[in-house]
């Protein structure tokens, strides 16, 4: 079961493997391995079996089959599937059943994908480790004592351990790319607005995008074509027609320019710097030219991101008040207690912190200094990266400054925030960005290379990633602990 999605799809279409068998094998592996990993919060066994039956029937009758027929896909638990539980990794939503389908999962099912379950995550997408889920932590398949990154921890780990070839995540400050890098998978975030946010539980509305994990850039391109379309129900959705990423995947990169923001990378450990240099050599080998670019304003990424993201989140999470849905505190004796006790009991500490920070930066007397200022710095960053992109086709940098650490090893919360240093810029500027597996540290922890492009230049990002992938073998590496039965 090490097939990538497009290969699996072909095997299904050709009749070599049935959908029923795909589903059976998928759940069997999950049941064997997930207890060690903690990637899944819920499984859609009934639903997947039913869908598999229908697919096998359709194939027997030579009816039209969608582009993702036969492909098992896991969904981060902040993305709705109508009628199924959506927890967002939080106690607050323990029994909350989605009352509508997200556009993305609807599009996937229309292309006959097999949705197999919901994955674990840092609560309400706040976190970069996978240790902030209210339920249990997720472990990194490459080293179980390490975290897989977050907040899309379960989705990354599931694909990393080959429990499924594709999973959906969400990326607000790096929550797809960072765990992608830490788990040796391809983690992609599209241009802001390219993929509908309808049905994604909002964290930072101007930063969020639904992304994917795969172990093949071609799969990433396939998924991006299916879900990258205009959505009537999302007013921030881009109106342009879907793009042809697959068709553009094999474009030659001769004389393409790669921008590298050298000054921004000062402070990288020598090991990480070495891995990055090696990756650059591969790209040069493909005919690309390295040009230095100035992204010095990106050193303000973390501050800007935390101010703006928390501000938006503090209002997005205000709806969780125990009134219409969610866990209402049994101790509440009056209305004010319904609010304050339900939220005290339902939210984890990290979430509470971010709500407080967000409320602070918006509060009277401080809004001008913090929120307003952060918006200006955001504008500055956008201006600078647009300027940089006039000098290069894509920008390249490491996805993270450090590899996966030990679970519980982060003592300083600020340290966890700093892990987002290289990823938050793409969210602040609305740019497409991908992390591709690009090597290992001396202690066998995956290293990710990040490729970032201009707005709506997702194809350039995917093409570069694809070329890099073909020139290396890192994407094919599987975690030893979970490779035995592949």
């Amino acid at each position, binding site marked *: 079961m090490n097939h990538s999605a497009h290969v699996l799809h072909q095997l299904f279409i050709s009749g070599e493997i049935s959908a029923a068998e795909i589903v059976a094998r998928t759940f069997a592996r999950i049941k064997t391995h997930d207890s060690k990993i903690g990637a899944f919060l819920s499984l859609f066994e009934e639903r997947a079996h039913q869908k598999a039956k229908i697919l096998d029937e359709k194939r027997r009758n030579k009816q039209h089959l969608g582009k993702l027929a036969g492909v098992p896909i896991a969904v981060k638990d902040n993305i709705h599937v109508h009628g199924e539980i959506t927890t967002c990794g939080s106690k607050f939503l323990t029994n909350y059943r989605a*009352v*509508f389908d*997200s556009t993305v999962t609807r599009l996937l099912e229309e292309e006959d994908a097999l949705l197999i379950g919901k994955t674990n995550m840092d609560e309400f997408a706040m976190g970069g480790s996978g240790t902030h889920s209210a339920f249990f932590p997720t472990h990194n398949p490459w080293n179980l004592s390490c975290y897989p990154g977050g907040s899309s921890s379960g989705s990354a780990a599931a694909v990393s351990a080959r429990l499924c070839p594709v999973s959906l995540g969400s990326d607000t400050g790096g929550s797809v790319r960072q765990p992608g890098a830490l788990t040796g998978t391809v983690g992609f975030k599209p241009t802001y607005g390219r993929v509908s946010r*309808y*049905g994604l539980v909002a964290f930072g509305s101007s930063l969020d995008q639904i992304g994917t994990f795969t172990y093949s850039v071609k799969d990433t391109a396939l998924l991006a074509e299916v879900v990258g379309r205009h959505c*009537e129900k999302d*007013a921030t959705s881009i109106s342009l027609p879907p793009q042809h990423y697959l068709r553009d995947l094999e474009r030659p990169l001769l004389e393409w320019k790669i921008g590298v923001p050298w000054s921004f990378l000062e402070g990288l450990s020598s090991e990480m710097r070495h891995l990055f240099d090696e990756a650059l050599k591969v790209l040069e080998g493909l005919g690309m030219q390295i040009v230095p670019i100035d992204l010095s304003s990106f050193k303000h990424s973390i501050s800007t991101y935390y101010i703006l993201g928390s501000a938006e989140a503090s*209002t997005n999470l*205000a709806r969780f008040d125990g009134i219409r849905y969610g866990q209402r505190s049994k101790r509440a004796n009056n209305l004010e207690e319904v609010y304050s006790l339900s939220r005290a009991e339902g939210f984890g500490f990290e979430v509470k912190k971010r709500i407080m920070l967000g409320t602070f930066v918006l509060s009277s007397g401080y*809004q001008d200094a913090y929120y307003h200022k952060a918006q200006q710095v955001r504008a500055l960053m956008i201006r600078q990266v647009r300027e940089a992109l006039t000098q290069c086709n894509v920008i390249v940098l490491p996805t993270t400054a450090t590899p996966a650490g030990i679970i519980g090893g982060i003592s300083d919360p600020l340290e966890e925030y700093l892990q987002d240093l290289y990823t938050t810029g793409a969210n602040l500027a609305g740019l497409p960005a991908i992390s591709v597996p690009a090597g290992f540290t001396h202690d066998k922890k995956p290293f990710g290379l990040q490729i970032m492009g201009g707005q709506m230049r997702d194809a350039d990002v995917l093409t570069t990633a694809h070329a890099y992938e073909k020139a290396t073998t890192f994407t094919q590496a599987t975690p030893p602990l979970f490779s035995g039965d592949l």
Partner: protein
Amino acid sequence: MTEILYENWEPVIGLEIHVQLLTRTKLFSSAPNRFGAEPNTLITEVDTGQPGALPTLNKEAIRLATQFGLAIHAEIALVSSFDRKSYFYPDSPRNFQITQFHQPLIRGGTVTCDVEGHTRHFAVHHAHVEDDTGMLKHFSSFAGIDYNRAGAALIEIVSEPVFRTPKEAVAYAMAIRAIMQYLNASDCNMEEGSLRIDANVSVRLKGEKILRPKIEIKNMNSFHNMELALEVEIRRQIRAYSLRPHDPQDDVIGKGTYRFDPAQKETILMRRKEEAQDYRYFPEPDLPPVVLTEQYIEALRAALPELPHQRYLRYIADFKLPPASASLLVSDKFLSDYFEEALAYCSRPTALCNWLISEFSGRLKEKGLTLQQSGLKSSNIGKLVKMIDEGTITGKMAKLVADEMLADPERDSEEIVRNNPAYRPMEDTAALEAIVIQVVKNNPESIADYKTGRTKALGFLVGQVMQKTEGKASPALVNELIIKRMRDEKS
């Protein structure tokens, strides 16, 4: 005992009027926008603040709001945007409202209306679009929430604090209502809550330039109560300052929200505003700005229907209606449309107007009906006035016919008259002449008066004849006969 010199003070009133727009669907969702349905049946994931839901802006709401802005000659912002306004309350599905704080759609503007015979122009500060809350139903040991109304499109119109009397404020509010009706932008039903008026009230000494602390009066549910509430509150504030002339103003009139109790005829404190609410407004990231083109705006301007003030001027110019009557007619679109329909059947607008706003209005009030509810056809009222004009019936008889019309609204007024000979005027000219001769003979002073140019004397004589005929004679005919008789007498 302090004597309170009310006349030394002037009120300063500003109004915030919320109008529910007549759109088929809500402002940010496609849920039906209707009143009176079963609780929680007109909702979507957006209106109930479900996680993962996103707002989408209703095109029609923008069109109606823009037309309103044009109707009050305001500046229409080519770029406007939405903001989140945060506060926790159970009728709020998200605990933030989506409103327009930084860049509203409509800026400035003037509402022109008639206040006690004078044309006045009142300045509007701005108007913006926002979503409505759900409804709380209060029971003794709990409250229930119905989200049917949550998300309905509202336009909030904020005036400058320019009203100096309750009548001015009421006239302005009625003018806003009329404009909305004429644009078909809202049904402006105060009972159903599609028109809500909040007033900010303070007072100051005449000549004082500063503004003293103000309070807010909410939930005034009729124009009558609004006028009363304002009068009562103004007097309360003046009394308070007069009785405590040396205390700090903030202590005398503490900021707060009041409601009006029509039974007690007093304003009652609902809650104090301890500190200004920190709404933490910031741009709504889920909605892009609204960008309008000049063409769009001009097309809407060209499509504006006749507005109340224009109609008011037309009624005065074309129909020679007295301003007060014209004002009353145009203030209600149904009434003035009805008037124009009825006018097709008769030729004296002033008479028709009086019949509508005085005679019929009085009868309807007695029955507790509105004109709309009565079922009376405009054609029948028009024909009634026509019959008076043509001399088919007298004014006095017409009143009896009107009574019958109200008892049986479906009946044709001409048919009522045809079927009842008692309504028809006296046709016996000979008998009439005899009466005229008698009256003229018995009133030589009047004849003398008339001959000296006092035309009023004629009216007196006509009245005498009308009395003797129990109002059945045609006044025009009587008039004619009397003049003829007086001439004959002379000779």
